[in-house]
């Protein structure tokens, strides 16, 4: 009796902890594999589903079950959510939200279309994409292009509150999703090509009232660090850690934007996210390390204070935005089970860190073409510990303004861009959609005008030398920093992956194929050509006993810029041209959701 009482006590303590440590509605939703209540599947950003009705043995029989046109033609990133019996679908600008009734063949329960000034459209870098909705406490959260954050009643679509996070006239826009944590909503901002001093902001989940805002660069109070307690590679960062690395007040137009995917560890109570490129793209114009652009951040969501920071690309010279997702996993390194954070950076290095302390454990190239740095210095005694060792030939800073640095790999769009990787606890592997593209980069002088592009470099992009494929879909062992298998793709893989307990991994291609591959070998098991190129992320859910897989088509985004016209290879002979044929020969614009299932 006594022991029963004790165990009841400990169970309720555990439940209380869950309430205290995360948002209960989100935690409950992510623990139920039948639903998909977060863009990343769960706080850990693993993009893994325990559903296994569709598996390696039967996925070959998969077929479209139903589809839905979004009515919008531009690039469709992100994925729908499924909460209970309702699917929530979003679109790029004008950012329409549809609630679809899964009990009634996807009938539209409600539709929300915000009124936004279309002048925000050209202020957005690289198409008007939006990476989707979030859900918590009976509300659907939309972060519009014009930076208005809206909480909608999930049942009616009625606006419960709205908050304005930035000003498009100053170049501040949004493309990202938001993250509900406990009683707060964490929100990022875009504008790295417009000289915005970017930040992460917490709003009260119930009211939309701003609680705290932490910038990526600036004085200690603005970036919300404690010079003694906040660490970088195990050491306190010290006073004015950011200010010291900028000339004059250039940090005020310093970029470091926060438009990526955020993850959260409820036990450690830390939120992880990346900051993007420093503005401008001309490194000569902004001497110094430009901290804390290009960094991985760990922050306390209650106070906003940073626990640790790691800058991956000090003084960026290539536009290697550090915003990509930060999946959290528990794996063994050197025989010891550790709490890890894994990050596939635009700069071509796959990083594995201890997410408790920020200690750097692994940093290896996840595309063999990467050449701008020979390696990341892993010697703790070295003065350049943790820094990339830059190859002078590919240094646009070293070569200078009006000089064209050639053959830099990866290109500015990175060995991987925002398209998120997946992780399977069953195989212990990451599944990573990658770009296999290199560039020439020529920086030159630019002047800053608020709300106008602040770029300052000319880029030419082309497939990596010697290869005709512009993408690979790879499996990666983050404990060793090694590629396990690699499937070449003609175009960059710009779709977020999904791993499932059915031993399969899904991803989309720019031609429009949804593909399923064997999680162990990468062998293609199924493909289906959807109405348009896929830059959305694959998700899965179960309804009335049947498992579904869904993906948004709708080509666009950064991929739509270079690839719609085909990339030119200035170094290739005429014979190579066919291999880089334009994407427009394969697909056309059009937002559509395709939902797949096994035949009944």
């Amino acid at each position, binding site marked *: 009796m006594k022991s029963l009482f004790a165990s009841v006590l400990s169970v309720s303590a555990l439940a209380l902890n869950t309430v205290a440590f995360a948002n209960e509605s989100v935690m409950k939703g992510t623990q139920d594999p039948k639903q998909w209540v977060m863009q990343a599947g769960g706080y850990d950003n693993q993009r893994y589903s325990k559903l296994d009705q569709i598996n390696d043995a039967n996925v070959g029989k998969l077929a479209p079950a139903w589809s839905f046109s979004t009515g919008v033609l531009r690039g469709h990133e992100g994925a729908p959510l499924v909460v209970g019996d309702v699917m929530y679908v979003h679109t790029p600008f004008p950012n329409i939200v549809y609630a679809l009734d899964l009990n009634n063949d996807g009938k539209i329960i409600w539709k929300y279309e915000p009124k936004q000034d279309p002048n925000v459209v050209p202020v957005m870098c690289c*198409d008007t994409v939006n990476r989707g909705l979030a859900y918590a406490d009976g509300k659907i959260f939309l972060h519009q292009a014009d930076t208005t954050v809206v909480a909608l009643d999930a049942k009616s679509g009625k606006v419960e509150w709205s908050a304005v996070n930035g000003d498009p006239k100053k170049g501040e826009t949004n493309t990202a999703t938001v993250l509900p944590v406990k009683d707060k909503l964490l929100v990022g901002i875009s504008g790295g090509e417009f000289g915005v001093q970017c930040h992460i902001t917490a709003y009260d989940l119930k009211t939309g009232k701003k609680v705290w805002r932490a910038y990526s660069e600036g004085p200690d109070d603005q970036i919300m660090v404690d010079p003694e307690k906040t660490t970088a590679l195990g050491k306190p960062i010290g006073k004015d850690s950011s200010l010291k690395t900028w000339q004059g007040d250039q940090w005020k137009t310093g970029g470091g934007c926060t438009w990526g995917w955020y993850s959260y560890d409820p036990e450690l109570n830390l939120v992880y996210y990346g900051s993007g490129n420093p503005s401008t793209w001309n490194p000569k114009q902004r001497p110094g390390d430009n901290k804390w652009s290009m960094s991985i951040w760990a922050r306390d969501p209650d106070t906003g204070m940073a626990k640790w920071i790691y800058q991956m690309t000090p003084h960026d010279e290539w536009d290697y935005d550090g915003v990509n997702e930060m999946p959290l996993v528990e794996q063994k390194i050197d025989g010891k089970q550790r709490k890890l954070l894994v990050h596939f950076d635009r700069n071509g290095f796959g990083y594995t860190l201890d997410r408790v302390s920020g200690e750097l454990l692994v940093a290896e190239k996840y595309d063999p073409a990467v050449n701008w740095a020979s390696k990341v210095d892993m010697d703790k005694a070295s003065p350049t510990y943790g820094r990339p060792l830059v190859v002078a030939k590919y240094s646009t800073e070293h070569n200078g303004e009006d000089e064209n640095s050639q053959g830099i790999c990866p290109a500015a769009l990175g060995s991987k861009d925002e398209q998120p990787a997946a992780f399977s606890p069953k195989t212990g592997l990451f599944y990573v959609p990658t770009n296999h593209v290199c560039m020439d980069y020529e920086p030159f002088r630019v002047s800053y005008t608020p709300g106008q592009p602040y770029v300052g470099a000319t880029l030419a992009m082309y497939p990596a030398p010697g290869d005709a494929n512009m993408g690979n879909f790879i499996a990666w062992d983050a404990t060793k920093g090694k590629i396990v298998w690699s499937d070449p793709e003609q175009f960059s893989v710009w779709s977020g992956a999904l791993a499932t307990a059915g031993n399969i991994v899904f991803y989309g291609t720019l031609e429009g194929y949804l593909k399923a591959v064997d999680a162990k070998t990468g062998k293609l098991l199924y493909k289906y050509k959807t109405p348009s190129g896929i830059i959305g992320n694959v998700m899965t859910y179960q309804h009335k006993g049947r498992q579904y897989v869904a993906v948004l088509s709708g080509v666009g985004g950064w991929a739509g810029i270079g690839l719609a016209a085909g990339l030119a290879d200035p170094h290739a002979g005429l014979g190579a041209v066919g291999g880089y044929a334009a994407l427009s020969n394969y697909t056309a614009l059009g937002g559509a959701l395709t939902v797949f299932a096994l035949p009944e």
Partner: protein
Amino acid sequence: MSVVTDFVKETRRAGTNRFAVLMMAALAVTAAQVVAPAQAVAPAQAEPRAAVSSQDGKYFDAEGEPIYKVDSNGKVDWYTYSGFQRYSAECMRCHGPDGMGSSYAPALVNSLKTLSYGDFLSTVANGRKNLENGQDKVMPTLGLDKNVMCFIDDIYTYLKARSDDAVGRARPPGHDPKPKAWEDAENACMGAPS
């Protein structure tokens, strides 16, 4: 419209500060309430124009409008080369590499076949909108952006060369040296380097 164009041409030949001139041009166009020019009557597709005169490394056609100069090895004049640089930094994110267009903005290699110099200037300065058919295409008003307007003739000659097929895709293989007059004009327009 043509008044503005002539005004731009005249003052540009006079060699005054190009940014100030273009600002005035932009304001004049706005004041005149000119609609998006590509919707105006498109002139018949013109034959590629040849450079007939030059001043300080900049070339002009018979109409006195800026034009490219390309030699048999593909080497271009400095203005055209500078146009490639600036185009790729300021315009490429929407209009695609080498003026080839993207999934949401037109291929300027085609547009420049019919768009006149004057219409080009006013479209860049004033922007344009097409919100039909689920597309939400918006060209920003760039009349106040020095990174564009200080180099607008350069961008024009580069795109004209692309649309006439006088310059291929990617970076031109060679270029004339940077003329002193260009550098002076850049400093006058952008402000002296810090």
